[in-house]
Every structure is written in C-alpha cells, then in structure tokens.
C-alpha cells in the first residue's frame, strides 16, 4: 500500500513536469494581424535602456494602428508586438526568439538591446530565415558574418566621423592632415579606427593617432605634440569631461587648429555651460537628437514625435527611442512595398529600404547596417546647430584663433 502511494507520488511529479513542458500554448489571434516578435530587457542589467525601446515600439505601433494599420494587397492589418522579457541574458533571448518563431508564429522579428544579445538572436533568425530589424546593437560584429536576415538602424562606430571627414574634405583650401585621439574604451577605439581608415581613404594624412587616458584630465603632453605637428583638424573620441578639459587646455596652451571635433559633449548643455565662450565653433557628431528635424512616415516629423512621446511618457526621448521608431518604420514600409507577408520577399524589400523617418533617412548597406547617418553639429553663438549635411547654419571653418576672439 505504502509503496503504491510513493509510486503514485513519483508518477504525479513526473506527470506535472511533462505536462508543464508540453503545455506552453499561446492562444491564436484573430486574422488581419501582423505579429512582430520582440525579446527585450524588461528586467536585468539592461532594463533601463530596454524600457526606452519598449516605450517607443508601443507608441509607434499604436500610432500605426490608429491610422488604419498596414495595407497589404488592399487589406488592412493591425500590428501587434509579442513581447518577452529576456532578462538581459543572451541565452534567454535566443531561446525566446525561438519561441516567438515556433510557438507564437510571429511574422517578423524586432531586435533586443545591446550587441552581445543581438548576435545570438540574429543567428536564430537566420536559421529560420525570418528577417529581424534591430535598433539596439551598433557593433560591426553583428553584420560581419553577412547574415542576410539582420538589419540594424544604429550606425557603426567606425562610421561615426564619416560625415565630419567628408565635410572636411569639401572645404577650401582642402585640409591635408588630421590628428586623432581616443579614450580607452572599446567604443572610442572603434570610432578612432574607423576615422583613421576613412581619413586615409579620403587622402588626409593622419599625423597623430594616440590613445589617451581621460581620467588623468591632463592633456598638456598630447596638446604639445599636436601643436608641433600642426594638423588642420583634431578629432577626439571620448567623453564629455575629457572634451571639456581638452578644449580648456587647448586655449591655455594657445593651440590653434582649424577644427576641433568631439564625439560626445557639444550636444550637451553641460558642455556649453562649463566652457562658456570657449565652446564656440567646436564641432560635434550625433546620430540623432530631439532637436533635429526630419519628416517621418509614422509621425509627421521629429518635432511631432518628440511632443507625442513626452506627452505620453513624460521624459525626453533619446536616440534609442528614435532608433526603435525607425525599426517599425522600416518594417511597415517593407511590408507595404512587398505587398505580402512572405518573409523572403519582405526581407528583400527591407534591403531596398529608402525612406525618411523621424530618425533621419534610412538606407541599408549590403551588410544590413544602416548607412552612416550621423550629422555634424557646431556650437555657434552658444547654441548647437546641425551644419552638415544640409544644416540650419553653415559650418564656420577654420575656427578663429584663440587670441583673435
């Protein structure tokens, strides 16, 4: 008798285990819905940034559905995003992408946040040949394996100074040499590497290419070197604090260059406040900022998006938010262009994307990454303006010498 009970107990436990494993069912949705799958960092280390994507994705899909959805071959489809929490973990995320494809049968995939999670996810998408549009990973690694099913809306770090350099070579007289300095993190290193490659391709001589320690806050040695080499422009990939110190000390040492450009800093109010008048004419780059003005297909313009976003979520959107809107815009456009939900045809339509969004124009390189759309900023009269390509103001080049200001 007792053995029977024990036996039964064992059977019940195994039964429950088996039952739970097999019963992960998801109810079927009504017809005329396009399902997008997204495993995002709702919890875990990256949940703060993950939320930015979720907020934007929800706002964008709500806007599309309100305006009548997506038209596919004359029929209107509503969009629904199936969200899962990947706990900011790569293995969890890849598993969930599997679930989205196999169990939820989503039509298309949206990316997670951060490059390390995006790559395993993109490999699952590739196995099933379902296109994934991601706006949360910028690493060149994502696109280095020529996976045809992954498209990214964040420009690569290597292209960050691309627009700055092409603006620079357009000036007369044509600059001949530049100096590149960079901070000690991986992102800065990729920016610098890419800038060097780009500059050499454009026929500029890189007279100085050096890693700096931003924490030391002392730029005297490097600036003395720069002064003796006298390049036309100095590009720095670093952070706001370092940028402030660099500009301050360049003035003190009277290092006169035709151009100083920084990756981070010029677009921030703090930078201008700390440097005051010395911030004038400093160049910067950004992939997106809420002050920009682009026309869009989901929202009328950047301004319209920023206003609606702030009204709903009560914080200022940043480039993560805008990049998420671009993801949805890319998919909407591609589905409409393809006129079908066939993954292969939509993939081909995504590859041919050429649209204006509130995030800026979106076109993809053959490897799937967005064509570098970073813009050049310059501080003029205490304000930041976009000066290239097609800015509200013209770039002021060369910068006036410190003594003559």
């Amino acid at each position, binding site marked *: 008798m007792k053995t029977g009970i024990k036996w039964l107990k*064992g059977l019940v436990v195994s039964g429950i285990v088996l039952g739970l494993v097999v019963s992960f069912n998801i109810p079927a949705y009504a017809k005329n819905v396009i399902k997008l799958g997204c495993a995002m960092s*709702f919890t875990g280390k990256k949940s703060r940034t993950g939320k930015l994507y979720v907020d934007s994705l929800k706002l964008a899909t709500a806007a599309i559905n309100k305006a009548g959805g997506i038209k596919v071959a004359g029929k209107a489809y509503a969009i629904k995003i199936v969200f899962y929490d990947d706990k900011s973990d790569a293995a969890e995320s890849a598993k969930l992408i599997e679930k989205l494809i196999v169990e939820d049968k989503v039509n298309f995939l949206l990316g997670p946040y951060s490059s390390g999670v995006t*790559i395993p996810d993109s490999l699952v998408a590739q196995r099933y040949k379902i296109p994934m549009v991601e706006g949360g990973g910028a690493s060149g690694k994502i696109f280095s394996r020529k996976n045809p099913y992954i498209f990214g809306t964040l420009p690569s770090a290597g292209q960050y100074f691309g627009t700055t350099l092409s603006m620079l070579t357009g000036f007369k007289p044509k600059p001949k040499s530049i100096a590149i300095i960079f901070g000690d993190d991986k992102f800065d290193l990729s920016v610098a590497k890419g800038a060097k490659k780009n500059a050499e391709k454009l026929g500029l001589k890189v007279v100085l290419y050096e890693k700096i320690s931003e924490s030391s806050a002392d730029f005297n040695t490097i600036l003395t070197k720069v002064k003796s080499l006298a390049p036309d422009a100095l590009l720095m990939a670093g952070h706001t604090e370092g940028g402030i110190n660099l500009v301050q000390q360049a003035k003190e040492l009277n290092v006169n260059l035709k151009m100083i450009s920084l990756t981070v800093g010029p677009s921030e109010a703090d930078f201008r406040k700390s440097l005051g008048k010395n911030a004038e004419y400093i160049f910067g780059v950004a992939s997106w900022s809420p002050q920009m003005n682009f026309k869009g297909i989901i929202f009328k313009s950047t301004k319209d998006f920023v206003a609606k976003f702030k009204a709903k979520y009560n914080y200022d959107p940043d480039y993560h938010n805008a990049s998420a809107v671009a993801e949805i815009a890319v998919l909407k456009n591609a589905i409409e262009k393809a006129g079908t939900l066939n993954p292969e045809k939509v993939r081909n339509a995504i590859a041919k994307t050429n649209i204006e969004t509130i995030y800026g124009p979106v076109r993809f390189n053959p490897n799937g990454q967005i064509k570098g759309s970073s813009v050049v900023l310059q501080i003029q009269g205490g304000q930041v303006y976009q000066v290239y390509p097609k800015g509200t103001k013209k770039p002021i080049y060369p910068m006036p010498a410190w003594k003559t200001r």
Partner: protein
Amino acid sequence: MAQKGTVTKGLFLGILIIIGIALPFFSGNFIIRFVTNALMFAVLASAWNIIGGYTGYASFGNVVFLGIGAYVSAVLMEKGGVPFWVGFPASGVGAAIFAILIGLPVLRLKGHYFAIATLGVAEAMKALVDNLEITEGNSGIYLPVMDLSVKSQYIFFYFMMLGVLVLTLVVTYIFLKKKLGYGLIAIREDEEAANSLGVNTTLFKITSFALSGFFSGLAGSLYAYQQGFIKPESVFDVGVTVKMIVMAVFGGIGSILGPLLGALSIEIISEILTNYFLVAHTLFFGAIVIFAIVFTPKGIMDIISGRKKFGISYLLQNIRDHRV
C-alpha cells in the same frame, strides 16, 4: 523497506529517462531548446553539487568553468579551425586543469573566504578574457555554424547535453561508492578529523573541484556551439553561479538527483512565470524560492524520497528543525 525505496527510485528514474529520450521526437524546436537549456543548468548544478554539496566547499565562482569551457571551444574552433569533436573534450580538460591550478591555493581557504576567493577568480577571468586579443575582447567571438537542418541541430545539442548530464550523474554516483566519495563527505563533516584519519584532503578536494570544472566545461562548450556567439559578460556572469546554487539547494544538495530536479523545476517555474508576467515574474519567483527554502530546506529530493510523510506537519517540522 529499503528495497521498496529503491524500486520507487528506480521507477522514477526510468520514467525520467524515457521522457528524456522520447521528448525531442514529440515536441517543437522551442521545447527542445528550452529543455536543452534546463539540462545545461542541471549539469551545472550537479557539477556544483560535487564541490558545494558533497565536499562542503560553497564555490561562488563555478561559472568560471562554464566560461573557460565556452572560450576554449570558441577559440580552438574559430581561430584554430579544429572540429567540434576536438574542441568539446578540450573544453572539459581545459576547465579541469584550470580548477587544479586555481584549486591549489584557493582550496586552502574555508567557508566565507573560499566563497569570496572563487567569486574573485571568476571576475578576474572575465576581466582577462575581456582584454585578450585571442578571445576578441569584450566585443565577443563567433563560432563556426553547424551544417545541419534546424531540427537536427537541436536534437544534436539536446542529446549531447543529456549525455553530459548522464555522464556527470553516473560518474558522481560511482565516485560516491568509492573511497573518494566517503573522503569528500568526511571532509565536509570535519576536515581535520578526516585528515587525521589519513584522508589526503588536498588531493580529494582538488579532485572534486576538477571534476566539477570538467563537467561545467563540457556544458560550456555545448552552450557556446549552440549559441554561435559568446561574450565574456554572458559566460562569466555571476548570476549563473547563483542560479546553479539555488537550483542545487532547491532540489536538495548532497543528493545525486536533487540538482537535476531543482534545475528542471526552477526552469519550468521561471518559464511559466515569465510567460504570464512580463516584469513581475522576478518578484513571484523570488517569493517561491524563499518559501521553498523556509519550508523545504532539504529540497525536493527529501519530499519525493518518501522518507517522511509529506504534509503540513512535514513543513512545520522543517521550520522547527532549522529554526527559521
């Protein structure tokens, strides 16, 4: 009585094995991947059980073996061009050698000091791999893609992981019946007494640590190959160590099948909660773990082994025994 217990255990094990073998042929790719993942944690928790459960050395850095296993395979296959069949055992051996080297100094420490030291070792390895050229630093490294259909790939990984798990459990079982097993338990109960009785404690502890490393390393190799891409922050994540310890405790430490049951049930509970609660799942999950530890500190194994009758009195007895 004892024989009846063995029959129950045998039946239970039999059912588990049948489910284990039949599962991939009756379920979709997601379930296979999900179970493969759960099996990986079962391997990790069982491997942790060797050093943490039987030997009584609570390692908080066991994830380092997963990481080393993953990176040994990744570097050998991607940079060295060797096939998986070479990379896979190399991962286990690599992790075991690392365990021996690191065990020599670290296993001299006891209690909290050992826990902190192992935690430090794992973090240090992460920092190292983050900055090495050959591992492609913190941007991560790809592995070659397997040339099989999706379904066959998943069945392959499933059975490989199942194989590693069975190997882990069988090897643990055999060792427990030998001098090594008794020695380890003696070390757990009283290391100095064991030493004075002639147990070579250093050798036994290092063997136990190396075994733990070996199986975790094999799991790491499979993990890396299935993921196709790894990064230091994901394979040296201290959260993974915490997870394997929670699983081992949940299932019942110091028993062979405990960590396996712990891993399966925790993965299933966590999956169901995540499915229904997008963000609040962590809260519910935490609550379940707390209740489990308070009411059933000896784990699931203690309940289903049938030594005591399960009921309210069992739960209350546990609280009394452990003075919560």
